[in-house]
């Protein structure tokens, strides 16, 4: 198999006082679309708000410039994307580095801090800047509406703040705003020198920065290069608010990325040669022939979608994490597997393969002919659909769908919630606990350990592999329960500490 050309990449920059949470699911969506994503934690972030008091705007600029230079030559195309203050940094970066290797995406750029919820004394802050010691000590707090219009999301964010979770600082020092003001002034000067295509996404009701900011950027960059998208149902945090799908769609379109799904795979170039496509297909068929559906995850995007027809225990659309459960049920029900593959038919990134689904148990044997349709993009499997010629054969063999098991649903929900909680621990656990968390998560998410054991030189990778291997044979439910219990214990320790 020939090597696949380096994929496109995107460099994502978070906002003031924030983390990658600011960008919602943009990392995952871009990865699903075949892009490599990069991010960084800006100086003064990811620890405690007091650490921002000594950070200058130049530190942030230097950090993004340094990261940019590190990754620039690794990809044919590199897009820059920032949220809030991150978008100002992205703009400065684009101008300073004469960025021409990709596009610039500015999400909710606060060129002017004049949104409808900004307090009346916002214009007085320069007076406070000159008072000795005050900018470092004075706290500027985040409050309702927290940049979010969706009340349910806002309630979640509020609860996170009240629990003291570390996804966003509850306050920033006044000094920080002074640095943002300096950065805004820099962007105002630099905007007209930006030469790359730019997408500006801004909410009409942004409570922090009005549409004036978006208009300024479009006018400065020029209508020929700048494109503006106005959102009608969000506040400032546009990547997590009501219009997040519109944001994602526009961003993906702007970077020319394929959206997951067979339809878009037909509409887009797969960015794979015929040989590469054949090799990728063969790797997938090899997994299916052994009944190792779980193994497909190594060959697919994180949100791999599998469509199984009929009304039986395997039916449904299984996407992302739910695919892991489907894959284990698939193997458990009569050692099901696909076999007798026919000649594949290729159309761009989509392949149709005649095949047969076979399974057997003590009393019956299933041989269900049909065809599998696969969609590939940039070397990864995006989606698979099974078309059975006689789906009633499968319904009869696999039996009716199980009644919803409230315990299982609750466990799944608790596991997902614990996975989120684990990322918000304010104190990093010791290495042994981290390995335990990793191993339990992998066992619950992907089943028994797979792949080669990393070499002795890869100390961390080897330790993680070994920890996962120690859980071999532990059921998914048991792994989930243990994981949830461990996260709860760690959170409880934080509370009592």
């Amino acid at each position: 198999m020939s090597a696949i050309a380096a994929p496109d990449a995107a460099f994502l920059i978070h906002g003031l006082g924030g983390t990658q949470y600011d960008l919602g699911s943009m990392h995952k969506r871009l990865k699903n679309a075949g892009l490599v994503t990069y991010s960084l934690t800006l100086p003064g972030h990811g620890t405690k708000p007091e650490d921002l008091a000594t950070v200058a705007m130049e530190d942030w600029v230097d950090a993004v410039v340094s990261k940019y230079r590190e990754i620039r030559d690794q990809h044919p195309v590199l897009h820059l994307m920032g949220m809030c203050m991150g978008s100002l940094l992205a703009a400065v970066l684009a101008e300073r580095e004469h960025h021409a290797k990709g596009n610039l995406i500015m999400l909710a750029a606060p060129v002017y801090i004049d949104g409808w919820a900004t307090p009346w004394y916002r214009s007085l802050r320069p007076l406070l800047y000159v008072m000795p010691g005050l900018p470092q000590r004075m706290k500027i707090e985040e409050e309702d509406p927290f940049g979010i219009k969706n009340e349910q999301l806002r309630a979640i964010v509020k609860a996170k703040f009240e629990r003291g979770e570390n996804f966003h600082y509850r306050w920033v020092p006044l000094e920080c705003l002074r640095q943002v003001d300096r950065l805004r002034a820099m962007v105002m000067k630099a905007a007209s020198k930006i030469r790359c295509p730019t997408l500006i996404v801004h909410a009409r009701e942004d409570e922090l920065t009005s549409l004036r900011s978006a208009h300024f950027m479009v006018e400065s960059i020029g209508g020929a290069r700048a494109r503006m998208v106005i959102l009608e149902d969000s506040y400032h945090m546009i990547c997590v608010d009501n219009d997040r799908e519109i944001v994602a769609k526009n961003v993906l379109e702007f970077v020319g990325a394929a959206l997951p799904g067979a339809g878009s795979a037909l509409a887009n170039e797969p960015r794979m040669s015929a040989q590469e496509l054949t090799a990728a297909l063969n790797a997938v068929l090899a997994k299916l022939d052994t009944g190792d559906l779980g193994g497909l995850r190594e060959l697919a995007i994180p949100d791999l979608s599998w469509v199984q027809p009929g009304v039986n225990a395997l039916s449904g659309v299984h996407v992302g994490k739910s695919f892991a459960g489907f894959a284990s049920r698939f193997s458990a029900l009569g050692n099901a597997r696909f076999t007798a593959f026919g000649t594949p038919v290729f159309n761009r990134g989509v392949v149709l393969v005649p095949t047969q689904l076979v399974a057997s148990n003590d009393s019956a044997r299933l041989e269900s002919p049909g065809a599998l349709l696969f969609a590939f993009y940039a070397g990864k499997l995006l989606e698979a659909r099974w078309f059975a010629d006689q789906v009633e054969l499968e319904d009869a063999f696999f039996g009716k769908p199980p009644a919803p098991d409230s315990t299982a649903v609750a466990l799944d929900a608790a596991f997902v919630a614990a996975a989120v909680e684990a990322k918000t621990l304010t104190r990093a656990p010791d290495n042994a606990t981290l390995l335990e968390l990793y191993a339990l998560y992998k066992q619950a998410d992907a089943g028994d350990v797979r792949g080669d054991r990393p070499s002795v030189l890869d100390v961390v990778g080897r330790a993680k592999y070994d920890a996962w291997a120690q859980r071999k044979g532990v059921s998914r439910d048991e792994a989930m329960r243990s994981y949830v219990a461990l996260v709860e214990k760690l959170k409880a320790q934080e509370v009592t500490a």
Partner: protein
Amino acid sequence: MGKVQTIVVVALAYLALGALSAYFAYSNEGAWGVWLASGFGLGLLFVRERSDWMPVLAGAFLGAIIFEPLVGSSAFDSLVYAVIEVAVTFAGGAIAAQLSPPPIRFMSPKDVGAIVAGAFVLALTGAVIVGLWDDLSGKPEAWRTFRVWLVGNFVGMLLVAPFVASWAQLRLKRSGGLTMSSFAGGAVACALFLICLYELFSASPAGRFLHSLGVGLTYLPFVFFVLVALLWGTRGATLAALIGALIAISQTVRGLGPFVGGDGIFGDTALNAQGYAAALAMTGLLVATLVEAQRVAAARAREWKTRFEAAIGAHGLIAYEWAPDSGNLVVTGDTMHLVGLPAQKLSTLADWLACVAPQDRDSVAARFGQRSAGGAADTVRYAMLGPSGARPVVDEARAIHDHDGELHRIVGIVRTAAA
């Protein structure tokens, strides 16, 4: 703020406010029209835990013992006044803390009650001690001392303590709080309030019924002041009340304004001005606090609604409440997913029935008819027409009766069912 800083700040504030109070003294009688100095310490006690009171009381003691010699008191008298200052400030703060534990957040009328009670106890305690002291010392005007101390302190506390308590809780925000439009509206109202008040209290007694706007403006300032309290909240209301009251008192002691020249209801010109100032302060506090209480209640109601919608949304449920007498229907839940319409579009039973699959429509209508006749709890299965075709649902209804057992409402939960 550290302990030493607190002591120094309170002492300096005491001196500044004491000097301001001296400026407003009865020019012709040498008595204090309003005593503002104790208000700073009392205001800080309103927002601090009791364990944090000591630096504030120490600052008040320091301020008093420096201030008294400046206005002619002997060293012994100064010491006694400073001790009294500490005692009365503590008494006022303790009473307020008993009624509404600190920090007072101006969120309920109880908070206003605590502030008024704290101010009154401070004033009364001081007036009793000083009145008795004068009486026991054989001074001729002990009763007058008691009265002047009581009223001057009470008004001063009402003006300064809530001002300090509300501004001490100011937190600068990146977003949220008072917006620029509310600020601008409040600024206009505040300017009109102060202009009207100044005009009212600038009228000379001789001319006020002839060529002055004064009398006509007697009540107008309150209208603008209430607007200030509505738009600016507690901080704005206490600021405007303080400035307005000082204008009223200073003009009155200069022999101007509506209370000069007549007996007034209290029979004393300055006392009438003090009463006006107290009314102003309490009106502002009450209006701003009630607005805040309403805002908090609305926020809590929104939180409940959000929680309810999240709970039924997570379970894929639709909840409805139907009033058989009016035919009104209130639906909550993800109706877009089920029937392709927002919940607001399903405001009558007819709207609901229009979404029921044609083959089930008559039977569902009949079932609702039975329910309106007071039928017991029931469960019915039917199909609803949605964006992706007909969906089977299970509708579980319960009747709510009034105290006489008459049917009041039908409430139900609808969930999708397996085909």
